[in-house]
């Protein structure tokens, strides 16, 4: 049992980790095929894991409804929505005939049938709700920017000045403020679009690349720890 829980996962991680590392350097069709097969396995495992996920969320909400916990009405919404979308998705009742129109084999399910129930629910309920949540981001960006750009320290002041310059340099109104400086003159670097470009391409890019380098090395180091079984916390249990 210990072998199944401890050694076997480490062996699998080591073998597949080394194998994946090796096939990265082999361009032959067989090697690429093996890589794709591994990807397929991941997709298959993910599909099975989705059953666990559905069991998790439905189980919790059914229990909440059963025990009439506070807010159980929302659990009803989730359960009914899940059932409705699942039934509406059922794609076909029989195999489609050659050349048959989409609506005949997607009677009310499937995104392909644009007049079907599922399609209607997806595009008229899911998509607007997703867009609504996403659009809240605009307000949060404003509140976060307000909080961040308060010049409470010298560092915050630098951030504020840089942010104002970049924002101005990215809009026509802002660039028109320094439009009177000739692009050929010695002082062309004072044009807002040039200052913005320098801020983005020099200090910003330098910091960005520093982070990317560190991340790359960190990924390799973590991968080595996992492949060689040094890091085992992700399997549960200690180090």
């Amino acid at each position: 049992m210990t072998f199944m829980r401890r050694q076997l996962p480490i062996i699998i991680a080591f073998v597949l980790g080394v194998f994946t590392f090796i096939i990265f350097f082999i361009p032959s069709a067989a090697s690429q095929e093996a890589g794709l097969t591994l990807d397929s396995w991941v997709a298959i495992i993910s599909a099975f894991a989705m059953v666990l996920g559905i069991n998790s969320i439905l189980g919790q909400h059914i229990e909440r409804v059963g025990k009439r916990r506070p807010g159980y009405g929302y659990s009803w919404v989730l359960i009914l929505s899940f059932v409705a979308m699942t039934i509406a998705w059922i794609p076909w009742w029989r195999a489609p005939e050659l050349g048959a129109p989409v609506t005949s084999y997607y009677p009310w399910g499937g995104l392909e049938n644009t007049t079907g129930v599922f399609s209607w629910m997806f595009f008229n309920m899911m998509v607007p709700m997703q867009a609504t949540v996403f659009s809240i981001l605009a307000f949060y960006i404003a509140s976060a920017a307000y909080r961040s750009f308060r010049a409470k320290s010298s560092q915050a002041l630098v951030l504020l000045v840089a942010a104002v310059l970049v924002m101005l340099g990215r809009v026509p109104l802002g660039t028109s403020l320094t439009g009177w400086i000739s692009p050929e003159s010695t002082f062309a670097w004072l044009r807002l679009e040039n200052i913005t470009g320098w801020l983005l391409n020099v200090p910003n890019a330098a910091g960005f690349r520093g982070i990317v380098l560190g991340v790359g090395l960190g990924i390799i180091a973590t991968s080595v720890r996992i492949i060689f079984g040094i890091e085992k916390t992700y399997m549960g249990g200690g180090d």
Partner: protein
Amino acid sequence: MRAGTRNRLFCLIAALAALAFIPFAHAANDVGSAAPFAGAVPPPITPRVLLAFQQPEEIEVRDLPNDDGTSIVITWRQSPSQPEKVRYTVYFSEGPDGPYKPLPFDFRSISLDENLMAENLQYFSYKREHRNYHYAIINLTSFDESAANEYENAMLVYEDKLANGLPAGPEPVLYEYDLENLYFKLGVTTNGSVRLFDLVLHADPVEQWFDWSKFNVLIMGVVFVGVILFMIETARRKDMYIRRIAGLDAVDEAIGRATEMGRPMFYLCGLDPMTTVSTIAATNLLGHVARKVANYESKVKVPCFDPIVMSVCQETVREAYFEAGRPDAYNPDNIFFLTNDQFSYVAAVNGMMVREKPAANFFFGYYYAESLLLGEVGQSTGAIQIAGTDSNVQIPFFITSCDYVLIGEELYAASAYISREPKLMGSIKASDMAKAVILIALLAGLVFSIALYFGAKANPQHPLGVFGEWMEYFMEVFNQHAG
């Protein structure tokens, strides 16, 4: 008008009218090797600019190196002729004698200053002289793909006609190219006119078993792995210093605060699946957090975006509770799956934050546009927030909305930092050593670039001679050689 004259005039008009319906064969091009066309009607006259174009030298074809044996590459030296609006093109034939036709798939013609061998180090070694050579890669599987597409489209039309009772003609047949007998000709084109050069080109692609363009990656990877293993061994024998990471020090503080307030904590592992290293790092850190939570008899909730991540998190937290001697306190319902739809997940987590008012929120792993949505809502509830992500575009959003942020690699170092395990600390030290090597390489690259800049002022064609070429080669070793 007399009848005879009228008849002759009528015959003359009729003859002229008939001439208009006779399909004249275009005059054969009598210069160079202008292509015999099939499929596309050629223009009757090859433009003067193409006729005057000097045929490039050293036109060669060979197997494309470092590939899976499906492609060939045509290379040629830049032509002295540099007229505007003229581009190189490639025609093919199923046999050396023609007819040569345009490639059946999307093949972008090549301008006179692009596709230089020096710019594609995935397939060609770095040499200065390669700046004077063009290349064109022909993937032979594209022939079959284009035939399959054509067949599929023809079948759709055919079936549609059958379904509507229209005359459909014979059933389309899938054309199979004779890939072993494909011959090519290089040519130049402008405004739809083409002139093909004489040389007939043919090569057989060969499958490769090692991608030499990745040899530098292999060497650096093996050296780095060796250094990691060496440092891990070293760390077993002596203590190693690791700098303070404020965000990780604050983890204990956040757990203590939640315990005192009697409120739960939320721990998110990001939106990426278990196959990404940042998610693995997040689950590693979850193990440490869960152990402390179990010790303090507090409560951590882990809403998951991915069912596999959920399973791993459940196992990690369960083991942590067991190790802390509190298996009875473990509740698997606290680690649950929500949805794998991005904004639905955000809405659900934000709803829980607003309702349950957690004392602490941990955002570790990889995040996308939802980072600020989560951070701002958590901030509005008054929770202490600690984030850690390697998504560099989301780091600013976390910095504005969270109390502490682990930037990039700090997320990977978290497990070692908290546990202080020598074998984990060793890998952190190895990363630092690798960074030092990269720093030296960057400085060398900077010095070489400056030297080459001034060298180019003296000799634009060959700055600093062979030594300069060696410098350029050194910098290319660290380049990403993407095709």
